[in-house]
């Protein structure tokens, strides 16, 4: 059947997206209750031993976080140990997966992993899964959708393996100290609260108690010390420099002018920025305007980068709510600045709690792989139809913010980015207010007031159809990607309804 935004969702996959947020009912899920004994030793000699103690069996669900990004060693060590123990048919439920996780392909082929639920997939793993490698479709959830699924019990985690830059013998964890420090451990905090068994894997075992404590010992069953949980270079793969690309700078300039003329740029405003070059350039431009007009932001949300931390340091933003740090400057800021606060993924973006951070946002700047004339955005499948991105906090922040800005080049290489229909919808057009490209700005017709404001400010506003026309005039219309009938991915909206499905790519 067709969902509310015209996507064909086969029967039996779940509730199709209705266009509105589904209202939840029932009670929250929880983990099994255990007795803790005085002076109990939680530190085990190796990962294999911890897996044995955890009681991991065929058919169970295991989870990881993705704070180590491209430098992660932990998923690899754990899956190797699981394979040696002969355990099969597991569901892998990490907060996201990166290119460094291509080795998972082998474990899928061996039958160790038979299902995956994640925010994103990239590299060879994304390519293979797009061609039907996995028996069951991958479930794609947003950063707010995952804690929702965990807290409602829809995603029950049997064993959570938590890479810990700093842990003590009792199992207290933080992400800010040690050779593999990555800063906020926000995504793993939810796993720790709801998994039946929690195993901390650290390369920095300290005396009890450590400080600060992000995940407390009350939630952690076992601690294993290994040589290294991650490669610092890969951990900082999210670090970005200020862009020097004239095109990105032009987009950033226009996006800044959209913000300045939106009516929301006033003392106490709040904002979420991505880590991309254009987002950082926007920060630089806004900074000047904030100083000139004596405006301070009340808070910033999301993944935090060094330039955002610098705004905090300079007093231009009062608080940062941080679910993941993109670079070392952000890690240092989280560690040393009391106004830089760590938050878990549920606090960040879960629609089914009593008030998540994105619900308080004024402005968010997000990117797009494609955007269509209904303003629907794709950030997961590439121009070849393969899964190559992540849902991330895109749909969550877009829903929460008063003003959602998409910044994107109008063309990438020979491809138009504004199209009739995006391949995969991650965020519905109803959440998008404006798209900013180097060749013009299109405002969603639902926001007529903004359209007038931007026109009055002399900005190059046109319809989204005009943007599409401008792109296609240069690139032409690409032939559609050929898909098969097998569903390889189910894209959940933040309320758990199905907003789209991803079908297998045919070569």
């Amino acid at each position: 059947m067709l969902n509310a935004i015209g996507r064909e969702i086969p029967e039996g996959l779940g509730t199709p997206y209705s266009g509105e947020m589904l209202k939840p009912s029932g009670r929250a899920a929880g983990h099994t209750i255990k007795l803790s004994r005085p002076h109990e030793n939680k530190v085990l000699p190796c990962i294999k031993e911890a897996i044995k103690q955890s009681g991991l069996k065929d058919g169970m669900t295991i989870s990881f976080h993705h704070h180590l990004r491209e430098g992660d060693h932990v998923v690899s060590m754990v899956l190797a140990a699981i394979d040696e123990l002969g355990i099969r048919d597991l569901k892998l439920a990490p907060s996201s997966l990166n290119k460094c996780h291509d080795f998972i392909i082998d474990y899928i082929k061996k039958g160790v992993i038979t299902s995956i639920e994640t925010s994103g997939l990239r590299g060879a793993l994304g390519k293979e899964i797009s061609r039907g490698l996995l028996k069951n479709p991958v479930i794609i959830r947003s950063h707010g959708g995952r804690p929702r699924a965990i807290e409602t019990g829809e995603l029950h985690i049997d064993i959570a393996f938590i890479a810990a830059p700093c842990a003590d013998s009792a199992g207290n964890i933080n992400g800010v100290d040690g050779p593999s420090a990555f800063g906020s451990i926000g995504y793993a905090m939810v796993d720790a609260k709801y998994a039946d068994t929690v195993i901390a894997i650290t390369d920095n075992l300290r005396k009890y108690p450590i400080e600060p404590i992000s995940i407390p010992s009350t939630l952690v069953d076992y601690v294993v010390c290994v040589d290294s949980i991650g490669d610092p270079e890969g951990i900082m793969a999210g670090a970005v420099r200020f862009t020097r690309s004239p095109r990105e700078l032009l987009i950033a300039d226009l996006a800044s002018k959209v913000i300045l003329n939106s009516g929301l740029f006033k003392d106490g405003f709040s904002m979420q920025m991505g880590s991309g070059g254009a987002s950082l350039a926007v920060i630089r431009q806004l900074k000047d305007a904030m100083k000139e007009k004596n405006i301070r932001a009340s808070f910033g949300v999301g993944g935090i980068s060094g330039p955002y931390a610098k705004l905090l340091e300079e007093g231009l933003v009062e608080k940062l709510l941080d679910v993941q740090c993109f670079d070392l400057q952000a890690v240092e800021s989280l560690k040393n600045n009391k106004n830089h606060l760590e938050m878990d993924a549920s606090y960040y973006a879960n629609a089914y709690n009593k008030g998540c951070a994105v619900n308080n946002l004024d402005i968010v700047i997000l990117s797009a792989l494609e955007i269509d004339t209904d303003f629907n955005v794709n950030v997961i499948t590439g121009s070849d139809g393969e899964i190559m991105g992540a849902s991330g906090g895109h749909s969550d922040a877009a829903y929460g913010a008063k003003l959602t800005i998409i910044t994107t080049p109008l063309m990438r290489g020979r491809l138009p980015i504004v199209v009739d229909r995006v391949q995969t919808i991650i965020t519905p057009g109803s959440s998008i207010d404006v798209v900013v490209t180097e060749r013009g700005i299109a405002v969603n017709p639902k926001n007529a007031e903004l359209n007038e404001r931007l026109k009055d400010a002399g900005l190059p506003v046109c319809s989204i159809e005009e943007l599409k026309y401008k792109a296609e005039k240069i690139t032409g219309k690409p032939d559609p990607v050929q898909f098969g009938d097998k569903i390889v991915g189910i894209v959940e909206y933040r309320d758990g309804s199905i907003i789209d499905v991803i079908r297998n790519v045919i070569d």
Partner: protein
Amino acid sequence: MKLRRTLLYVPGNNPSMIADCMIYGSDTILLDLEDSVSVFEKDAARFLVKYALRYLDFSNTEVAVRINGMDTPYWKEDLEKIIPEKPDMIRLPKAETAEQIKKLDEEITRIEKKSGIKEGHTRIMVSIESAKGLKNAYEIATASPRMVAIAIGGEDFTADLGVKRTREGNELLVARGELVLAAKAAKVDVIDSVFTDVDDEEGLRIETEKAKAMGFTGKSVINPRQIPIVHDVFKPTEEEIKEAIKITRAIEEAYEKGSGVISLNGKMIDKPIVEKAQRVLELAETLGLLKEVAAC
């Protein structure tokens, strides 16, 4: 008023740069078939530029094509391919004599006629890149009615002089001065050389300020990031605009009173001051600054 504050060089063999070049707001775009294109790619670049002129929407931006020098075997073929696509302007590098310009004019006229293009449509701009060219600058600038601007090519010029090009630019001071004089005498625009260190924003600003002070009307740029800085320098300041408004008002008042002597704040206003004020106001109006300042 036709502005030529910035002339953005775009390599004629780079499709993505050509596709994007008109979005950065330079007054003129220079699609280059000369130095940025290797001898092996001259043909490919000609075709790329030809089809860019035919199919891309440059909106109101003036489009020039820099052909290869008349001392090379390429320039005639460049014109054959390019003139029928109606670029606004041809830029000739390494101009040295008025005869060259006359020959170029004849060739353009021949192709315009053949292609059914209104004679005189294609304007000419040249760059002076040698001591000989500089000595002939006025004759060059007045050699054709198509001529609208002359520029200095700093790299080649310093090479011809056998001196090193520096950030301060003292080695080009005399050449710049002479070129400005020739251009003003010929009543054509005069464009300063590129500033090659694209990351040195302060250096670009200083050099542009010097050029403006000497009388240059614009500057060639090699990266879109340089455009806002050059535009900012060539923008009349709020004080300049206010002063110009006061001068024109003083003149109007004096005429109303029938007074022959016009003064403002105790200073005589004579013809050159009035002309300067009118130029400032004209520029301010073209840039849309007049209303803003008048409202203050």
